[in-house]
Structure formats: structure tokens, C-alpha cells
């Protein structure tokens, strides 16, 4: 192809061949795994969180949420940080950095006190980390001096960030927990302590399913279960929300963010980039499908950029932010009445059921023909469009202005492809 696009980006001054990184998690905890992911084209990793000692893990430790025939809508994980001690991890990191000098080795670390944070920062920097990510957010630690309990306490976030900054010369990223109403608060504390960037989000505290056989949660660990982190496609909307809020906060607007949360496709990636993320992290889809998911992320992103005339990621990073506005500022002058396309409609009546039971009783089914007809009661909520099983059978139709409002141009969505 003659017109090449550039997927590389300098994140915190570190050149990344593409924005796709593995997030600190079960997918990157030893040499072989990370070597394979680099070979398959990932730009870098955030090495699974290094602590002072290895963890003592439970079995089993995973569960997933299904919806009808689709599994892994969401994923629950009870694993904690690295199972190796920091000395072993330092060796692995050194080897990887030596063998893959152009790949980016972010290293996630987590201490229980200032001394531990300082030691880990020093040693991982010495081992060759290109950047350090501070794990203030793992929701399933067996110690309450670590993980999301820390991330919910701005004073600790600031203090530990400062200690790390004093013990390293590489960029420092604070990884935040979504188990909090305002992530901006601990994020500002991290920035105050010297953090160069924010990673968002870590997993969401969850109980995915109850096991009726043992009357406990899933997974069943000797008859018991625990609250632990939820991830995957189901959390993407929450991750995008946190990302937008960070980028729209005037004090944080210029703080780079590494986006995390349910990224499976290039479209997901573009969504995070449009909301201002400059780096992207992935775990759950790798656990389900393997490192190869990066191939279509890169390929699809390249095609998206080619077709939109973008040559570098910065051409569109943050481009959607001005279009996310407070609810009170939305234009509420009109109703877009849906149009039902008779040639595609299969007469299932689902639109009418949902409209009656969840909307405004505005769809009548014609006797005999079973044809759905939209009546004057329609308020333009588009529940019918959302529930219709036939792609394209219901689309936005005419724009009706509310009484007393002045008609004006309205931007509408035309293509529905899901």
C-alpha cells in the first residue's frame, strides 16, 4: 500500500511502535508469554505487578458472565499480583529488555509501605523498566495495605507516588480503581505526588454468579467465594465514562491516560483514543482468544486511519471529547420518529411488545398483516430500533419539533452496524 499510516506513538516520551499493550495481569507474568506477545506484534506490556513476595493463589479463580448464547460478556478474576518474588521478576525483565530492545517494558509494581515501594521502584528501574505503573487498584488483594484500598485513599496514593518518583528516573503512571465515585480525586493526588500519567480502569468489584449447588458465589473455592475484579466487554462503558471524566477535568485534561477496559476490537481501541487515551491496555480478550487479537486491532486501526485520512494517532486522539456534554446541555427540542421499513420487517412484533411494556404504547400491530405501525404517541425514544432483530428494519425517520420550539438543523446517526 502506498499510503502508509503510522501506528506508533510517543507515550510519556517513550516511543511505542503501536499503542497496544498487555495490561498487568495473568497474561504477562513470565519470559515466554511476553516474548510470544512481542513476536505477535504488541507494542509493549505492563509486566504483571511485581511485589516483594510471590502470591498464594486460590483454585479455581475465574468465572464469566453469559448472556443467551454469548459467553465472556464479562469476566471475573481472583488472581492477585505476581507469583514470583521481585528478584525473579527483575531477572525476567532484564532478559526481555535485552532480547526485545524496541518493545516497551512497562512494569507494574505494588508495595505495602514506603520502603517496599521505594525498593521496587529502584530495582525495577535497574532491571530496565521503560516506565513504572503503580498498582493502586487491584480489588482482590489479601492485604488491605495494598491494592484498591490504597487507591481509594488519596493521601496514600500521593505519598506512595512521591516515594516512587524519588526512586526512579522513568515515567510513572498511577493505575486507578473504578471502585470509587470520583476517580478524579485520587488521580489528582497521584499527579500531586509526581505521577506522569494515569491508567484507567482496573477491574470492578463483583460477584458474577451464584452457585446454586453450593449456595455460594462463583468460582467455588472449597465451598466459598469472594468479591473480586470484573473485566471484559461488559466494563467498557464504565471505562469509557471514567476516561471521559478524567480528560474533561480541567486539572487533569493534560495528564496522559492509558485506557483499559474491555478492549477487544479495533473499534473499541478507536473509541478509547477518541476519548483521549494515548495508550491502550488489554487483558480479558487475550485470556479468551490469545495474543493474536492484536493483529485485527492493528489492521482495523490502520484501515480506519487510511479511510479517514489520518496519518498518525494524534490526528484523532481526544476528538470525541468536545461532543460529550452534560445532560442539561443536550438539545431537547425535537423527537426523531423512527421509520419501519416494510420490506425488511419480518412481523415479529418485538418492537410493539417493548414499546408497550417499556415505552409509550406507540406501536400498533395491524390486524391480519401483523404490520407494526407507529402512532402519534411516539416520543422518539428508539427502544424499538434497539430491540428490532433485523438490521436496518427500523431506522431514524423524520424529525418532529416539539410545540413552540424553533425548527433547526439536527445531526443524526445514519449507519447502524451492530
Amino acid at each position, binding site marked *: *500500500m502506498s499510503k502508509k499510516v503510522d501506528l506508533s506513538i510517543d507515550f510519556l516520551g517513550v516511543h511505542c511502535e503501536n499503542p497496544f499493550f498487555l495490561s498487568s495481569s495473568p497474561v504477562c507474568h513470565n519470559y515466554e508469554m511476553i516474548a510470544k506477545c512481542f513476536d505477535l506484534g504488541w507494542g509493549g506490556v505492563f509486566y504483571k505487578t511485581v511485589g516483594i513476595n510471590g502470591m498464594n493463589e486460590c483454585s479455581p479463580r475465574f468465572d464469566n458472565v453469559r448472556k443467551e448464547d454469548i459467553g465472556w460478556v464479562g469476566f471475573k478474576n481472583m488472581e492477585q499480583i505476581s507469583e514470583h518474588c521481585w528478584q525473579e521478576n527483575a531477572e525476567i525483565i532484564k532478559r526481555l529488555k535485552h532480547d526485545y530492545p524496541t518493545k516497551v517494558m512497562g512494569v507494574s509494581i505494588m508495595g505495602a509501605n514506603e520502603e517496599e515501594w521505594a525498593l521496587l521502584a529502584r530495582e525495577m528501574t535497574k532491571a530496565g523498566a521503560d516506565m513504572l505503573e503503580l498498582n493502586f487498584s487491584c480489588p482482590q488483594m489479601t492485604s488491605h495495605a495494598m491494592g484498591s484500598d490504597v487507591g481509594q485513599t488519596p493521601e496514600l496514593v500521593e505519598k506512595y507516588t512521591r516515594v516512587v518518583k524519588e526512586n526512579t528516573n522513568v515515567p510513572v503512571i498511577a493505575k486507578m480503581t473504578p471502585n470509587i465515585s470520583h476517580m478524579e480525586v485520587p488521580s489528582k493526588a497521584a499527579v500531586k505526588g509526581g505521577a506522569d500519567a494515569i491508567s484507567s480502569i482496573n477491574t470492578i468489584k463483583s460477584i458474577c454468579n451464584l452457585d446454586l449447588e453450593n449456595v455460594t458465589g462463583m468460582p467455588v473455592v472449597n465451598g466459598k467465594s469472594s468479591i473480586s475484579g470484573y473485566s471484559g466487554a461488559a466494563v467498557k462503558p464504565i471505562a469509557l465514562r471514567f476516561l471521559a471524566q478524567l480528560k474533561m477535568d480541567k486539572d487533569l485534561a493534560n495528564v496522559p491516560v492509558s485506557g483499559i477496559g474491555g478492549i477487544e*476490537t479495533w473499534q473499541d481501541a478507536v473509541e478509547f483514543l477518541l476519548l483521549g487515551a494515548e495508550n491502550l491496555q488489554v487483558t480479558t480478550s487475550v485470556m479468551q*482468544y490469545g495474543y493474536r487479537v492484536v493483529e*485485527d*486491532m492493528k*489492521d*482495523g486501526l490502520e484501515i480506519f486511519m487510511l*479511510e479517514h485520512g489520518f496519518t498518525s494517532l494524534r490526528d484523532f486522539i481526544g476528538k470525541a471529547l468536545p461532543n460529550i456534554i452534560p445532560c442539561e446541555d443536550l438539545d431537547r427540542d425535537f423527537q426523531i420518529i423512527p421509520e419501519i421499513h416494510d420490506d425488511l420487517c419480518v412481523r415479529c412484533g418485538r418492537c410493539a411488545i417493548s414499546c408497550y411494556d417499556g415505552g409509550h404504547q406507540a406501536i400498533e400491530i395491524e390486524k391480519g398483516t401483523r404490520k407494526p405501525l407507529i402512532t402519534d404517541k411516539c416520543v422518539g425514544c428508539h427502544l424499538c430500533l434497539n430491540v428490532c432483530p433485523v*438490521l436496518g428494519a427500523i431506522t431514524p425517520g423524520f424529525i418532529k419539533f416539539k410545540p413552540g420550539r424553533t425548527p433547526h438543523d439536527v445531526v443524526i446517526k445514519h449507519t447502524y452496524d*451492530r
Partner: protein
Amino acid sequence: MTKVRQLPYGELAENGLNIRLAMEEATRCLLCDDAPCSHDCPAGTDPGRFIRAIRFRNFKGAARIIRENNILGATCAEICPQERLCEKACSRCGIDKPINIGRLQAFAMSMEKDMKFQVLEAGKPCGKKVACIGAGPSSLAVAAELAKKGVSVTILDENEKAGGVLRYGITPSRLSDDVIDQDIKAVTDLGVKIVLNKHVSKDDLCALMAEYDAVYVGVGQSASKMIPNMKGADLKGVDTALPFLKKARIANGKIGDLGNVVIIGGGDVAMDCASTARQCGAKSVTVSFVETWETMPASKKEVDYVVDLGVTIIPAFKPLEVIGDDKVSAVKLAAMEGNSSMTLDADTVIFAVGQKVSDDYKDIKADGKLFVGGDAALVRGATVVEAVKSGKEIAEAIAKFLQI
């Protein structure tokens, strides 16, 4: 409800998938490790890879993956016998039924039409010129591969439209003009010139060889075979497969009253004759062949398709004679085993018993700067996907000869 499918001539036998339906089918794919489907394409297409691209919503990427490997990717999606190639090995068979790889490939290729960039690009001009005779699958594949290497290629074809057997030998319900045109556009986008209505006889080859650095003869098997010494073969109403199909295509199915039609032959071409006769308004259509249900060469997909259209199939009978005075009135058939025989009323009899190279190019051999390939070099015709494979190989040989 009628038990017989009504399908007007030229109307598509299968509708394309939209994004939602393609996602449903791609979601059935198990995304296997070392996917077995990816080992079974003669042209080296990698269904495991392009289905994964669809699954991860990289639709145009899927089209690019297919196109980069197979210049006739849209055509192959429609007419490949997937059930005996890629789909045969599908791991999903262990659960229920294989992934519909052909439909997914067709979906991916439909996304190529919306692309705002060209997937394939011509190589840097190397100063060499090659002529390809015939605009069928083999020439198209050779031409595309050479153009990618920077060769200036001209295709010469005697017909009004390019595509050869794709255009004139396969029913448009299975392979539409749109799909053929899409693949041909991928070839011409590479700078390949196609000169139509230009018959090149064997005698013209010398002049061509003087003008071009190499000449490729990819004329295919454009003549129909006939059973030797078949009694009644010269009666009015007796035809052979390719002329019949071409006539129907040119007249868009309006070829007059066929009456009761009997087709002799058990391959895909015979099935295409059967569906075409049916769609052209034949009163009845019967297909008979010497093979059994197990050994008949037609793909199961094609047999199922003609049965749906109401065609009667009689395996393991051989034709003894065509009966009639001036015009055919019946065909006499005898069982391959035992003593059964039958006489079928017939107003039209079509022999679809194989194709051959036209007499003009009979026994043509490669020599120096003259290359011969595709079905023209074979005893028995091959599938389109095999033509793509051999086209790539011939292009390599020509490139080697041209020292590029």
C-alpha cells in the same frame, strides 16, 4: 406452500449476509488453534484468519486478507466447492455443522466495495510486456500476479465481456455479473488492459510473440465434449452444455420453449444446465448420469440446489440413443447395472459430459516465450480456485523467464 423453489433466471440463489448475520455466523467459529480450514484451500486462502478478522469486526481487513491472496476472492466465495475443501475439516462439525465459510467470504468481499483505498497495487514497471489469451480465471490470475510484479499485461478475449467460463459457463444465480465485475476490477485496477471482441487464433500467435516478451495461452476448455457415435446427436433440440449456458446468459434466460429437458451428465456444469433449463421455463428437467450418487462429480451444494428447483435426478443410467425424426422426441437410457431401461419424453436434450480445448488450440504446447496453462493444459477441467493456484505458479514461471 410449494415444494419446488421458484427462482427467476439471474436472481441470486443465496442472499448475502449483512453485518449482523455475518457476526452471528462468525461467532459460531471456534477460532481454532492452527485452524484445519486454513490447510485445505488450493489457492492458499486462510479462512481461519479472515473469519477471525470478521469476528473482531475488522471487516475490511478480512476483505484485504482474502484479496491479497486470491485475485478471484469474490468469485471463489460463491462457487468454490467449500464442502469438500475448507469446510470439510471444520472443527465445528464436532458440535453441529461447519461454519458457512463461503458465505462469510462473500460477506467480506462485499465490504471491499465500500473501501476507500485500493488493496492491490501494481509493481514498479519493469519494462516487460505480456499478452494473455482468454479472459477466464486462469488468465486473470496470471495477469494479476504479473502486474503486481510490474509487467504490462494485455488480455485478449473473443467475447463481449470478460470472465470466460465465469461469465458464460456458470449460471448467474450462482455467480452474478456484479461479483465477476468486482474481481475483474481488481485485475484492471492493477493496470491490466483487457481487449474484448478480439479472437486470437493459433495462427495469430507468431505475430503476438513478436510484439510481446511472453504470451500466455489461458483459453480454457471452451468447447463441450460429446459422447462419440451417439445415435440421434444431430437431431434438432440436442445441444451441449457450454453453448446452451452461453445462449441463456446472453439472452438473459429468454431462449424460447424448451419443453421437457433431459440433461446427460453428473458434474457441476450439468447441474448448471439443469437449473438454467428450469429457470428458463422448461416444462420438466431430468438429469441422468452414469455415476452413482456417491461417485457423481457435482458438489453436494449444487445437487441440493437443483433438487430444490424441482429437477429430477436419475443416477447410474447411461444414454443409449436420442430418438426423434427431424426433432428430438425422447431419450433412451439403460441402467449401468441390471436390465432396467427407460425412455424419457424430451423436447430438449443437453449433453454435459465434459469440456475440451477448442479445436483451434488443441494440443498446444508451451515453447520458449509461449506459456500454456489453466484448463487448456489439463485433460479434465479444474475448479476456479485451482486456476488461481496454477495462475500464480505460471506467473512465477513467466517472471523467471523474463528475468524479473
